[in-house]
């Protein structure tokens, strides 16, 4: 077993355990915290595939920004331990077979995928930082710069809608 494969199994196990814990926890905050584990484990997997940029974005955007949003909303709603209703029980009964079926489909698709696609993944040519930066700063530099104005508009809007009356 190569060290890479060993790391892969560790990270994959971490992601799966985190995901299971996310579902099984009763308290929303605990679920949110286990989601962070999943995000970081996935980032590690991306890194393993040679997609450094995607890995970094995964941690910054999902592990950071989106998780803060999640936790913030949970705090705001003051959500306690979840209650089981009839519908949520039904979701459990219907959900497990559906999840297994989905897993089966994805596994079948991966098993049947051709070697070329797998080679692409292994050689680390997917979404390298260099390629992404060429796209962002050369081909798509105009929309990229416009995005900064878009964010400016959003900031301006937050101020306009939230400022105190003068």
């Amino acid at each position: 077993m190569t060290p890479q494969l060993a790391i892969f199994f560790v990270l994959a196990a971490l992601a799966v355990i985190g995901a299971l814990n996310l579902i099984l926890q009763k308290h929303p905050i605990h679920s949110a915290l286990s989601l962070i584990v999943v995000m970081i484990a996935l980032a590690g997997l991306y890194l393993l595939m040679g997609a450094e940029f995607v890995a970094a974005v995964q941690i910054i955007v999902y592990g950071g920004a989106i998780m803060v949003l999640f936790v913030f909303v949970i705090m705001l709603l003051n959500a306690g331990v979840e209650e089981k209703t009839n519908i949520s029980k039904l979701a459990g009964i219907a959900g497990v077979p559906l999840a297994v079926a989905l897993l089966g489909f994805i596994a079948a698709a991966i098993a049947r995928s051709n070697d070329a696609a797998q080679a692409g993944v292994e050689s680390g040519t997917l979404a390298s930082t260099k390629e992404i930066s060429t796209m962002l700063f050369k081909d798509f530099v105009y929309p990229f710069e416009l995005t900064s104005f878009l964010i400016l508009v959003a900031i301006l809007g937050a101020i306009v809608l939230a400022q105190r009356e003068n």
Partner: protein
Amino acid sequence: MSAFPNSADLLHVLPELIWCVFGALLMLLQPLTQSRRFLTIVAVMGAILGVCGNFYSVHNTGTAFSGLIAADRFSIFFSHLIGLIAIMVILGANSYLERERLADAEFYALVLFATAGMGVLASAQELLTAFIGLEMSSISSYILAGYRRDVLKSGESSMKYFLLGSFATAFFLYGIALVYGATGTTNLLRMDITAGAESTSILLKLGLALILIGLGFKVAAAPFQIWTPDVYEGAPTPVTALFSAGPKAATFALLLRIFADVHAATQFWFYAFWILAALTMFAGNLGALLQTNVKRMLAYSSIAHAGYILVAFAAVTKLSADTNIGAGPAYAAVAFYLLSYALVKVGAFTIVSQFGGAGEKHLSLDDYAGLGERQPFVAAALSLFLLSLLGLPITAGFFGKFYVFKAAVDAHLIWLAVLLAANSIIGAYYYIRLIVIMYMRDPIPEVAATTPIRFPVVVNVVLAIAVIGTLWLGILPNYALNYLLKPGLINDSQSQITQMK
């Protein structure tokens, strides 16, 4: 492909750059000055300079940023139109903001950012760029809709627009993703080539359908129009003027460009547009019949007008396959219609914003009773706008509707043409009703006490632009039409297309 944007690239997008820079400049000037007049002058200067920024593109048509932006005559036309709308909205909003005690620097900045976004949208030749443009204009619009924070309806308007608009954006984005999946590119010109045999694939059709839903929402086409009356009613009236003209023009421009470039799309969209056009016309006109609030009535009327424009789109889908006539006249019909419509709508809403009085209290149709006697010039201008919306001769609206009708007949869409005519007759009822109320009824005492309302000079300038424009296009439409009908409106040099290949 150049390493970095060269000066030609930047000059091609000069209008958008100027609008953005002036928007930012207004934010910086706001703490330094108390003078509303000064800020208004800066804002109007920005809008005007932006329009002037087209000078380079006018003389050097082509593409910029390796094909992301098209600087052809089509986008130049819309850049002028959108800039004109911005100028009129800023001038018309000046006294409104003072009356309602609203901050002006942020308002003008948002209008300019929205204008820049629309400019990008109208000239984008690539879907991600279009998406950023759409978002710039939409997010500014959501904020502007809620600008009267102490008024509940304004908040409702903003919230509804934001939530539904976000859904529409999601549809649009998902559509882009699927189209990218089907063709491997987001560049409209390359799509046809890369799609190849795949051009009829389900994935591409699904993607295009989602794009149509997203854009259909933005132009308030039925069945995606439910939000329109509430949003238009709650938003500050100068903002309503902007909504009804600007985003609609820019979004229709993008749709038209998708048609011109992606031929795989045209066949597939025919029935969709037929149904959309018919539904939208009826939804708008039948809804408007029941309204007693002027803003809501004009909101429904703008839905109806989106329907009339969609008739031309249905004609485009048919005509682009027809080599004898070609889709050129139908493209021109859409562009001309949007120009005539924008002038009239901004003019009408400007009158409504002035006449509404402090807190926008006088918005019901009955409040307009006796206006013809008390303020003859304002009543005459409003009547002209209403007649143009109705499509009577010597107004711009007549030629707008005439060319759309002609495009429909050329495309042998007789039933759609009949529906268009029938809807114009339904529309006559509520447009003429308001004119009758203005001239034939005695004013309500409560309103009579506040009228005549003195219109500030800048507002009169806006009305003069709208009136002169409406009459000019209604009597001498040729100047604008010749520009639009000259071959090569979109993608003027075929060499560009071959170059892309």
